[in-house]
């Protein structure tokens, strides 16, 4: 990076918050797999602003000098949208991590764009409140980035994704202006309590924007009171009963069961699979191929009992085999809870238990499909896995999916991908083929980024893509913000 630009950046944010040191830039080149190995790119400089005004100045400088700006949150990076593939200024929001307000009467939490969502969830717990849905991406995703990717997670059936619960935000536009959206935009008003202000929904423009429309510096999110009772039920289905399972999922979703997290057998039985740590505590018969883990919440134990009976009847009606609370309890239920997904246990704890857990080199493609089409999508994936030689214990093709309000949010993964050039090339082909085929059938990716095939966006049709481009050009005439992600 040119000296005078470094000098100006240091003047804007302070000397210690600007670095063009190689090791520092190098750590920002990685995304989660496959981005970590397939999509890479070092920023020319990493900057850590503290205020929207500082970001505004950085952006104005970038416009003047024709430099790309890549915003970055905590870096879950499922779609590699936060990778500086073409260099530029990486704006890391890690210093903007404060919770600004918990409004218990309006049921809204407001935090800075770099604030960890987990931090917010912790704070809400102390107020007997919770996020309507619980984003569980591996790291504590930051709020701004979670909006940019429209984060998903547990308990989406009733409340949808993050984009569905935002009531206000503040962002720095690619031209440097700082804007506020939602009712909080009224300068002398009552703050962020409602998303809609009688004009087109501009907040929606930032949802799933992958950092191309603006840098979100503050956001307000609707929260709910913590339910008073919770229960679990776990039924299993054989592979040949996928149609029956789909019917059961449709019914459960129709009656708004709180959470469905569907897994296939590889997830539990593969040697390096996610939950092999739990061993035989899962109590899952070997011939069971699908296990939807379900969570039910209620106002009290009485209501919980009624709801559990109701949902159990649906599972039984469609051929579900009762396998007890088993794994659901281990994952969700107190006191065994150890943190969901990867990792389930700490290294220190594992060491004390005398085991040496090995994390898997997994890689997932997140997308959406209509629930009734689940059998077709699963068959497609199974076929492609078999074509690439992944349908076996060596690679562990683990199907995982959440239920969203009216659809399915799968993120099937190949758990064990050997990291060598040949395997990575093969994996990249698999990824491209699967993602492209899904897009052709009308299944959108969870978010777009450098690792998502172009067809996933362009497949929406020329008119849609051109309109999107026009919007982007209007707000970012020099295309400085995350250049190359959208176009």
């Amino acid at each position, binding site marked *: 990076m040119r000296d005078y630009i470094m000098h100006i950046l240091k003047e804007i944010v302070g000397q210690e918050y600007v670095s063009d040191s190689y090791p520092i830039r190098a750590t920002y080149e990685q995304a989660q797999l496959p981005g*970590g190995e397939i999509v890479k790119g070092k920023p020319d400089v990493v900057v850590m602003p503290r205020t929207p005004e500082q970001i505004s100045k950085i952006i104005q400088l970038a416009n003047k000098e024709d430099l790309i700006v890549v915003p970055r949150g905590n870096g879950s990076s499922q779609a590699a949208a936060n990778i500086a593939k073409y260099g530029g200024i990486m704006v890391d929001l890690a210093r903007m991590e404060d919770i600004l307000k918990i409004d218990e009467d309006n049921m809204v939490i407001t935090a800075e764009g770099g604030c960890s969502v987990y931090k917010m969830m912790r704070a809400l717990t102390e107020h007997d409140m919770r996020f309507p849905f619980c984003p569980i991406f591996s790291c*504590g995703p930051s709020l701004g980035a979670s909006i940019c990717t429209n984060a998903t*997670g547990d308990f989406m059936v009733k409340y949808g994704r993050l984009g569905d619960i935002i009531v206000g935000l503040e962002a720095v536009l690619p031209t440097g202006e700082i804007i506020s959206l939602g009712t909080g935009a009224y300068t002398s008003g009552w703050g962020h309590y409602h998303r809609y202000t009688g004009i087109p929904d501009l907040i929606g423009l930032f949802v799933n924007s992958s950092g191309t429309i603006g840098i979100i510096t503050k956001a307000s999110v609707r929260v709910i009171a913590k339910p008073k009772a919770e229960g679990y039920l776990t039924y299993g289905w054989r592979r040949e009963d996928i149609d029956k399972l789909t019917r059961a999922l449709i019914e459960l979703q129709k009656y708004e069961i709180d959470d469905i997290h569907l897994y296939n057998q590889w997830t539990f039985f593969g040697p390096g699979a996610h939950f092999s740590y739990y061993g035989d505590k899962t109590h899952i018969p070997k011939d069971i191929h699908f296990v939807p883990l379900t969570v039910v919440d209620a106002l009290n134990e009485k209501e919980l009992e009624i709801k559990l009976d109701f949902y159990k009847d649906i599972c039984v009606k469609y051929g579900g085999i009762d396998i007890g609370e088993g794994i659901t309890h281990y994952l*969700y239920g107190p006191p065994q809870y150890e943190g969901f997904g990867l*990792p389930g246990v700490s290294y220190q704890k594992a060491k004390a238990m005398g085991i040496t857990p090995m994390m898997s080199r997994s890689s997932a493609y997140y997308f959406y499909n209509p629930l009734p089409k689940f059998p077709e999508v699963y068959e497609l994936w199974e076929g492609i896995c078999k074509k690439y030689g992944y349908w076996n214990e060596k690679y562990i093709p683990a199907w995982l999916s959440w239920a969203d309000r009216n659809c399915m949010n799968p993120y099937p993964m190949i758990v064990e991908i050997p990291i060598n050039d040949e395997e990575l090339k093969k994996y990249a082909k698999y990824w491209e083929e699967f993602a492209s085929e899904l897009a052709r059938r009308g299944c959108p990716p969870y978010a777009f980024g450098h690792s998502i095939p172009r067809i996933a966006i362009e497949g929406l049709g020329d008119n849609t893509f051109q309109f999107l481009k026009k919007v982007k050009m209007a707000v970012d005439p020099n295309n400085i913000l995350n250049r190359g992600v959208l176009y």
Partner: protein
Amino acid sequence: MKLAEYKDRLVSCKACGTCSYGRGPNNPFTAEASPSHRCPSLDKYHFMSYGPRGRLYLARLLQRGEISIDEDLAKIFYTCTDCGMCEELCFHPFTDIIKSAKVEIAKIGFGPPENNRKANENIRKFFNPLGEIGLNRADWANGMNLPRKAEVMFFAGCKPSYRQDELAKTAVNLLRQAGVDVGYLNKEEWCCGRPADWDGQPDIQEIMAMHNIKAMKEAGAKEVVFACPGCYLTFKNEYPEIVGKLPFDVIHITEYLVQFINSDKFKFEKFAGKVTYHDPCHLGRFAGIIDQPRKLIASVPDIELVEMERHGRFSYCCGNNVDFSNWVASQRIAEAKKTANIVITACPRCVQNLSIASRNEKIGIPVYSITTFLSNKIKK
């Protein structure tokens, strides 16, 4: 282990960031989330590179020969405080990997930092990192008539021996109060070698290990009791890797004393104060000794033991021995001040760092080692 031996482990990091940014809760009913602030060096420097995810990735590049070693890289690795919070959050053995990376860095002269380098040479020459004459090591024990041979031996550690003699004396007093005929190696006790090993100079630790184990054997030790968690952890985890199974049991003093709290050996005076316990990383997170010190403190009548937000497995570091230790300690002491009127801990380094921070930041909260605190409360 050499860095190359972690090859598979390094590529199996999927860069999720849990180690750096914390974990959970995904389920509001069972919300055992990690604290909002985690890795001290990430808290201080903010750049992802200074967190465990960054270090693991740089170790991967280093192992593959895809990055050259320079001062910037060395700084990133040498600012890890060895607090192990990342290992509480993730499966990976971060600290072992960081140590292996430091060996590579130290080999070509970019580490350790100058002060540490001097300290490690002091260990080699004088058997302590402080540059003190070995003959003076046992001055703290003058007049205590500690035998040099016993079945239960006390390992004082360098700081208590030269800088915090009260800690060593009170530890011995408590052991004697419990009726233990405790022995002490005197000047034959050498540094455990942990600081050098952590700095990427394991050869120095090996020398120390061979000597200390030999000396303990000759002393007829069946149990060795430690007041310093660093020394304790080194004997417990590192020495067996060098020499195999040790011929004696390795016990931290809080583990040892807790077995006597319900006996008539200890009768404490009442103390109506509000205290908090700071878990030393090496004792709490690394060794799982979390309840024992608390039980000891709680055995003092009328005492009010309250927890800081970050405690037990998720306790925050005191700053250990890095170039921003004071900053970390000042964060921690401020947290303690919000919680209680007195801080008790069980590590000489923590006592030192937190006391300095309390003084420098004008926080004015006293910091005691657990042995000093308990010893002062014994009914005369």
